């Protein structure tokens, strides 16, 4: 019996739209399911430029970038539902996955040969970053604050403290400053900024916003509304230094404490998770530990560049095509990609040697004048610097991959 679809794409952000478009171009029968009422994902609420420089060779805002995909997707008349929440994926067999989807029109049961999972990421909560106390009005996650300002047009407050100096925190600081709010501090627990240098320059320095490195917010105070935050210095082990407490008065606290791949449904289906990426373990086709279930975008690994997200979406679609043509991914022998010195995370996890493969990695700590070294295959790539905020993207060629027997280590070494 034939399944309802060749591929069901779950999530209509950049990864999902790119995957669905590519899958349709390859002639597959595609269905896309999006939880929200609108397609587009995060870029829909990103009104700042910095999107698509690599993919379109143009500097677009998140909104402009994503509408190019939305319009193309709609023009191709690819079947889709918005307001559709996938509640379960049952890997019934290698060639049949059963999905249960709740929509406004009722519950749908759908069968498909492959699934491409592109649900993006969720924001970390207060308790995950060790802030205690209750939550008075005026505490928002970055995503909530961004939606209020840039979709609904409402200013959350006037005196702002931002917790977390990742790109999301930095971009929110600029948004508030541009709208005339007083951004009193951006607070970062690490000794270096979490975001890209360009964002420290154009979001903080441009507006004279103070950045407190090696500081942690320990409490948020206020009975009904936020009145102040309490912060302390932390030592190298991120432990509070006694006697360094200070307070900053504010009416709004924005928590930008990072993103985690959003995998609820996939975890229940039983995929194996990598504790470093908090996303699924995948092979070079972005296939998870369940045959025929692929993953791309922020659900795979947190990306700072939407261009890479789209690239992963397109690869996942090509992999689904390969899977359908061959009734499974044909490779039988895998080489494991292993983290070496100063590598915090790396995807994909397994390589076949049949294809050139793009590797995405992040380092643990910033270093200058380094090289990436792959001892088993005798390969070196010189880099002027590496930073945790900047994902490394490099291509390993199949001739290089096949030089290794069963594993390839990637490490950062200092240039002598």
């Amino acid at each position, binding site marked *: 019996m034939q399944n309802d679809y060749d591929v069901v794409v779950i999530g209509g952000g950049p990864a999902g739209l790119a995957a669905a478009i590519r899958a349709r171009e390859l002639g597959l029968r595609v269905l896309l399911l999006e939880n929200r009422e609108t397609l587009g994902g995060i870029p829909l609420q990103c009104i700042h430029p910095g999107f698509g420089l690599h993919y379109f060779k143009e500097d677009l805002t998140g909104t402009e970038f994503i509408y190019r995909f939305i319009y193309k997707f709609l023009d191709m008349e690819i079947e889709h539902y918005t307001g559709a929440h996938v509640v379960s994926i049952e890997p019934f067999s290698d060639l049949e996955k059963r999905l249960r989807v709740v929509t406004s029109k009722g519950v749908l049961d759908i069968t498909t040969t492959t699934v491409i999972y592109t649900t993006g990421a969720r924001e970390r909560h207060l308790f995950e970053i060790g802030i205690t106390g209750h939550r008075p009005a005026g505490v928002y996650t970055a995503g909530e604050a961004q939606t209020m300002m840039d979709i609904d047009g409402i200013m959350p407050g006037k005196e702002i403290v931002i917790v977390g100096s990742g790109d999301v925190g930095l971009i929110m600081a600029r948004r508030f400053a541009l709208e005339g709010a007083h951004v009193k501090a951006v607070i970062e627990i690490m000794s270096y900024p979490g975001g890209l240098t*360009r964002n420290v320059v154009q979001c903080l320095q441009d507006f004279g916003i103070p950045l407190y490195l090696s500081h942690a917010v320990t409490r948020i105070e206020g009975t009904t509304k936020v009145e102040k935050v309490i912060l302390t210095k932390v030592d190298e082990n991120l432990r509070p230094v006694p006697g360094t407490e200070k307070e900053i008065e504010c009416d709004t606290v924005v928590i930008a404490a990072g993103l985690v791949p959003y995998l609820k449904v996939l975890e229940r289906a039983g995929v194996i998770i990598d504790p470093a990426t908090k996303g699924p373990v995948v092979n070079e086709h972005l296939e998870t530990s369940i045959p025929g279930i692929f993953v791309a975008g922020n659900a795979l690994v947190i990306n700072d560049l939407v261009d890479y997200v789209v690239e992963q979406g397109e690869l996942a679609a090509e992999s689904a095509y390969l899977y359908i043509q061959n009734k499974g991914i044909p490779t039988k022998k895998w080489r494991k990609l292993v983290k070496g010195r100063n590598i915090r995370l790396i995807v994909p996890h397994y390589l076949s040697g049949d294809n050139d493969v793009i590797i995405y990695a992040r380092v643990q700590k910033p270093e200058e004048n380094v090289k990436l070294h792959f001892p088993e295959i005798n390969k070196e790539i010189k880099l*002027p610097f590496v930073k945790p905020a*900047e994902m490394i993207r490099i291509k390993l060629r199949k001739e290089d991959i096949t030089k290794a027997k069963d594993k390839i280590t990637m490490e950062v070494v200092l240039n002598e």
Partner: protein
Amino acid sequence: MSEIRHFKLTCIICPLGCEIEVKMEGDKIVEITGFGCPKGRDYAIQEVIAPKRVVMSVIKVNKGDFPTVSVKTDKPVPKELIPVIMKELAKIEVEAPVKIGQVIIGNVANSGANIIATRPSRKVLPVS
């Protein structure tokens, strides 16, 4: 001979954030190094001569599917004009429908740049 000055800056054009160095002799640029692409070279030249930024915000839309559309200047404007432009944007309201790329304000604050919409707005009929 005029004085030689070195500027170190981080390119903000794309997230790669190349560290670019500019060497100036008086007001003449004599050497630029460290850029990853020609766009970065142009940025560095502009940044040492007259820094500019793209301005973005949202404006109110009446009868649209969302309460706002997002807008930006279609080219970078001198940094000192940013507050002036933000004030103009706070005042303005438009009617749906709005197309992506539609000019909302021409030559805003005499900057030579236009304010254009970066998100469309569909017209919705009021629910009665």
